[in-house]
């Protein structure tokens, strides 16, 4: 399963035998297992209704799974763990979720502050990072004074500084307009190449998934028992123009055929949602 892994190590995020269903409904995941290696950028590509949000809530420790385990950096993820030991995973939600009463500086410092870092040190750390994410000079602005793209940058920085080793990005650019979105994808490529944090990125945009990731995992059938893997061997640094390369289009064709097969199959099961 582990495609581009060169050195053998414990994965940054490991999911084993995950099974989950809402009461009275058929399971969303059945004995699902996958690994994310340290420093890897992996996209999860799934149609809506496949339990993407639920998977994220499980990974973020917001809900507990009755069966299976999720381990991030050697720590079991669960509700009770989250309550006692602080951030396990840096979660960047779909909405920016910035606090309107906090400045950019204090919004980005939230995670540090909650971990018990003093306000002064937290602010210093944010100030160091602001230029790296292209937010220099905005530290005293309030969220309502920023554009959608800028707000997502603040949100990203907040997750980055939260202290967790794995970042979980939940369709962070889906609410942005097309142009801003391309900008933000290039921006994320750039920032990630500097940080090399482990990132799990959820999206339903095939281009976005291929452009950003080392590996793309496609949720093929519902209930999800296995994730189909596509390795993206395109060298970095990548630019948005990469999406027009022949190699990229070949990969895209591969992903699309996987998805259409999926839809066909779930269609046969008489349920597409």
């Amino acid at each position, binding site marked *: 399963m582990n495609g581009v892994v060169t050195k053998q190590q414990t994965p940054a995020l490991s999911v084993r035998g995950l099974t989950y269903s809402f009461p009275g409904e058929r399971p969303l995941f059945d004995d699902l297992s996958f690994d994310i290696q340290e420093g890897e950028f992996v996209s999860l590509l799934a149609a809506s209704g496949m339990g993407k949000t639920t998977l994220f809530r499980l990974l*973020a*420790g*917001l809900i507990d799974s009755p069966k299976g385990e999720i381990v991030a950096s050697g720590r079991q993820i669960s509700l009770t763990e*989250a*309550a*006692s*030991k*602080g*951030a*396990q*995973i840096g*979660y960047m*939600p779909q*909405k920016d*979720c910035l*606090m*309107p*009463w*906090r*400045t950019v500086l204090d919004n980005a410092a*939230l*995670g540090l*502050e*909650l*971990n018990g870092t003093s306000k002064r040190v937290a602010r210093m750390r944010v100030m160091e990072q602001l230029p790296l994410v292209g937010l220099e000079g905005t530290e005293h602005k*309030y969220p*309502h*004074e920023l554009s959608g793209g800028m707000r997502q940058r603040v949100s990203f920085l907040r997750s980055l500084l*939260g202290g967790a080793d794995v970042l979980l990005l939940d369709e962070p650019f889906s609410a942005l307009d097309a142009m801003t979105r391309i900008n933000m994808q290039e921006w994320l490529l750039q920032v990630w190449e500097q940080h090399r944090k482990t990132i799990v990125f959820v999206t339903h945009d095939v281009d976005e998934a291929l452009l950003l990731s080392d590996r793309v995992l496609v949720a093929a059938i519902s209930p999800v028992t296995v994730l189909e893997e596509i390795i993206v061997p395109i060298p970095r640094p990548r630019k948005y123009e990469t999406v027009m390369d022949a190699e990229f289009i070949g990969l895209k064709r591969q992903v699309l055929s996987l998805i259409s097969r999926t839809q066909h199959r779930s269609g046969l099961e008489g349920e597409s949602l």
Partner: protein
Amino acid sequence: MSRGISASAPVILFVILLAICWEALATIFHIPHYIIPKLSGVFISIGENWELLAKHCGVTLGESLLGLGISVVWGTIAAIWMDSSSLAKRTIYPLIVMSQTIPMIALSPIMVMWFGYEIWSKVAVVVLFTFFPIVVNTADGFRTADLDIGELMRTMGTRKRDLFLKWKIPAALPGFFTGIKMAAAFSVVGATLGEWLGGEAGLGMYTKRASNMLRGEEVFSGVLLLSAMGILLFLAVQGVERVTLSYRKNAKS
């Protein structure tokens, strides 16, 4: 600031125009002073009795502030309680809303029976008028706190205390201030009513006595001062709100 003045220019001009019409009509039609006194007469009356009026103003203001303070403390405690327990919310909130169908004016004499003719019966009437807007608006503030922010904070391993201090409280502050602003205006109404029902001092008592003696100028001077007091209380709360919630200065609504 100059923007504030130019924004309120229309209302200021309109009030001046009304004042001129009042003075002119009362003079032209020789309206008896106990029906509508001349505006100039009202101001002369205020000037003549200013010492007495200041004393009565102080009494009414004291009652209003005391009642308002009690409502702020207990209203906030009730709102926090309803936010922290859904059972409390389902039990208390409907009762508080239903209590508003009781005419406060009819209830006020009971306050006099319970708390006597001292200041506390007036304070009690003020609380009757001010508790509701504070508790309902503050509770709404808590209720409308962005759940996604709370969820995000939970993924960061946030403790309950921090969720309350860094998420719920700042989110509820705008509603809290809206409640106090409304209550500030109502508080003067409550104090006046309390004094009517049985008081030895205060602007409410002053207007009632003047009205019994058909002294139009004195009635209207009392009414004007009561209204000014309500406006000033409102503006004072708004001032505190502006400073506290300065982040909303340029916010789109």
